[in-house]
């Protein structure tokens, strides 16, 4: 890979924080060991060490969007600060190409005593924009931030939302080549977040974006690639959807482990690249082809003709349930999902459905142990892994929970009107859990249990379309 196209290159990065009992020990550490070594005395360290980032290597190409996920304290912010240059790495090095604009944690480097206006000029100068240039852009910055008269108030009087608005607005106006955003958008209101997302989507086409968020849906939505950090180490680096899924599964397992339950996470198909980082295999859904082999013979297709004739022909072509063992799944294993099928309202399987039609999603399960209060549910996700809708049996049955004994089967029907879907691949995750909505253990979670492809949709905007009962235009008044 040529240097020209690499925006960020991180090699063997390590950051050690030296924790001192008192600040003066730090000064001693800077001087005394060197003196002691010179004089041949045994030197000793005045600190306890803590590695916030350990042996992290990756590169980001120009124009790429990379998400970074991980729990609190996993080293995300430290890593970003090193990339931005506000922290110096203990080991390894970072190369960056181009102007970096960063929104680290809450707000940029504002001086709280300065007014918004003064901070705009200050930040702009820091980014290397000349004063006259800043005067030209000032109006546009203020309009984007949309904080009204507060622009002439000291920044310390701002709400956290206003703070981020101004910070984001400045970052958006400095012609950055690399934009680094750390959790910043979570405090903005919906309208501003939308505005930022629009900006980020436009920015993606010309610059490099590094995006850190706990909102895994936003990460899968925005990022093509995601890096998962845990304990300062890189756990995975690969397509966003796969990394996020594995991250969430591991989170759940870790959560339940604390409560003494074990949730098995079968290894995702992974490979190690030469740098030793685990890279997730490409998405399975991308590998799905229209091959007949994946369609079982009990699927019939009587209506394709009829549907083709109608105006509302949002075709949903269904691929089959992946047999257990092939599917990516995790869970404690007290039950397993044996089959997931999509049927029409009369219980007949089809190869093709139409958006807007009533369907019956059937999840078949088998208990391997006695389970009190089972919950069966599903998620429908788009190609980016973004959750569109989902439901489960909890609310319907929580008054009179069933229990299930080893060897018994549960067949669950979800009957609902399938929304009209924009073109693309969709997947259904099926899950079997035990407990309550708030506190449950996943016994078996199957990713992409069912995959279907929407074609010939006339929908262009939004995530799902609602079947319209009727659309009318009423015209009133006499013509003049």
């Amino acid at each position, binding site marked *: 890979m040529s240097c020209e196209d690499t925006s960020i290159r991180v090699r063997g990065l390590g950051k050690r924080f030296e924790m001192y009992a008192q600040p003066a020990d730090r000064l001693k550490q800077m001087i005394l060991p060197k003196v002691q070594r010179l004089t041949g005395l045994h030197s000793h360290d005045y600190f306890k060490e803590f590695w916030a980032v350990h042996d992290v290597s990756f590169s980001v190409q120009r124009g790429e969007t990379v998400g970074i996920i991980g729990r609190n304290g996993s080293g995300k912010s430290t890593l970003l600060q090193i990339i931005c*240059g506000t922290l110096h790495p203990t080991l390894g090095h970072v190369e960056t190409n181009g102007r970096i604009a960063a929104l680290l944690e809450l707000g940029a480097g504002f001086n709280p005593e300065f007014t918004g206006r003064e901070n705009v*000029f200050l930040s702009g*100068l820091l980014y290397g924009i000349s004063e006259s240039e800043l005067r030209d852009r000032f109006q546009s910055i203020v309009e984007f931030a949309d904080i009204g008269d507060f622009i002439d108030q000291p920044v310390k009087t701002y709400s956290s939302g206003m703070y981020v608005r101004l910070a984001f607005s400045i970052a958006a106006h400095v012609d950055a080549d690399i934009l680094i955003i750390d959790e910043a958008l979570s405090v903005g209101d919906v309208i501003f977040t939308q505005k930022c997302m629009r900006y980020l989507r436009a920015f993606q086409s010309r610059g490099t974006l590094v995006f850190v968020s706990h909102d895994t849906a936003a990460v899968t939505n925005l990022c093509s690639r995601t890096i998962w950090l845990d304990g300062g180490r890189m756990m995975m680096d690969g397509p966003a959807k796969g990394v996020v899924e594995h991250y969430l599964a591991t989170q759940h397992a870790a959560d339940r482990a604390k409560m003494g339950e074990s949730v098995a996470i079968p290894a995702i198909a992974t490979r190690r690249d030469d740098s030793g980082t685990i890279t997730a295999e490409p998405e399975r859904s991308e590998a799905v082809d229209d091959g007949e082999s994946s369609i079982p013979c009990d699927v019939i297709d009587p209506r394709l003709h009829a549907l083709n004739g109608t105006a509302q022909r949002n075709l949903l072509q269904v691929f089959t349930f992946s047999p257990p063992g092939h599917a990516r799944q995790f869970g404690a294993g007290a039950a397993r999902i044996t089959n997931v099928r999509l049927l029409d309202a009369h219980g007949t399987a089809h190869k093709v459905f139409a958006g807007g039609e009533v369907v019956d999603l059937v999840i078949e399960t088998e208990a391997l142990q006695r389970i009190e209060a089972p919950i069966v549910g599903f998620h429908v996700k788009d190609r980016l892994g973004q959750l569109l809708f989902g439901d489960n049996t909890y609310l319907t049955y929580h008054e009179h929970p069933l229990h299930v004994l080893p060897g018994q089967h549960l067949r669950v029907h979800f009957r609902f009107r399938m929304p009209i879907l924009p073109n693309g691949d969709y997947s259904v995750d099926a899950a079997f859990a035990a407990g309550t909505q708030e506190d449950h253990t996943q016994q078996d979670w199957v990713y992409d249990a069912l995959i279907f492809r929407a074609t010939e949709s006339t929908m262009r905007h939004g995530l799902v379309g609602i079947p319209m009962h009727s659309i009318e235009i009423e015209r009133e008044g006499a013509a003049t």
Partner: protein
Amino acid sequence: MTISAYRLIDPLSPYIALKRHFALIVQMARRDVAGRYRGSFMGLFWSFVNPLLMLVIYTFVFGVVFKARWNRQETGHLAFALILFAGLNINTLFTECANRASTLIIDNTNFVKKVVFPLETLSWSVLGAALFHLLISTIALLVIELIAIGHIPWTIVIFPIVVVVFLPFVAGAIWLLASLGVFLRDIKQFIAIGTMALMFLAPIMYPMSMIPAQFRIWMYLNPLTVIALASQNVLVFGKLPVWWHLGLYALVSCLFAWAAFAWFERTKKGFADVL
């Protein structure tokens, strides 16, 4: 933003920092001056009124109460106050900068942790703001001098040279104290005592001739001595400064600034870890 490192081996590196970020430094200094009186009724006018009021107090206390005389030639209450004022202005510049320096980095934590900020420029902008106040005080002094004595010595044209010689030392002191202030919070207490000592141990409130001869040479170890004497000479006495004193001072001042700048640059990598 990437900021290329300074070649610390270059004695000019402190001034390269000044040149490279000049717009930023001016912006910060201007904000600093404006911010001090923000919201006050008389605004910038305070910068002018403050020194005038001080001058009145000095005249009363030293001239009228103590009946202090600088030497045989200088009589009159106001003359003493003017001489005192010429020296005190120099001390005020230094004290203001030193006090700000100890908490300079701590007060600007955002600049350390959130953005890539050329922290070394903070020294220059603090100095810039202090210089502005020195300018106002000096104008006040000259106005009083004109009214009270009737003329201003021509030697005031040399005053800028005296100040320029002083600046590298003050900038260096800020770098040194600012860096130490991050690691040693006690430095603040030390500065309060230290600046007080420097004021009393310089020929500001008394003439050099009052110092016993055997101590006189030691007075020159005080970094304020040469500058205060030169300031009194050119602003009040109408005498030329002792040139070789100033020349030697300039050399030491620049060497100190260079060393302090290098120290600051070496230690600033650790700031983010401490704050």
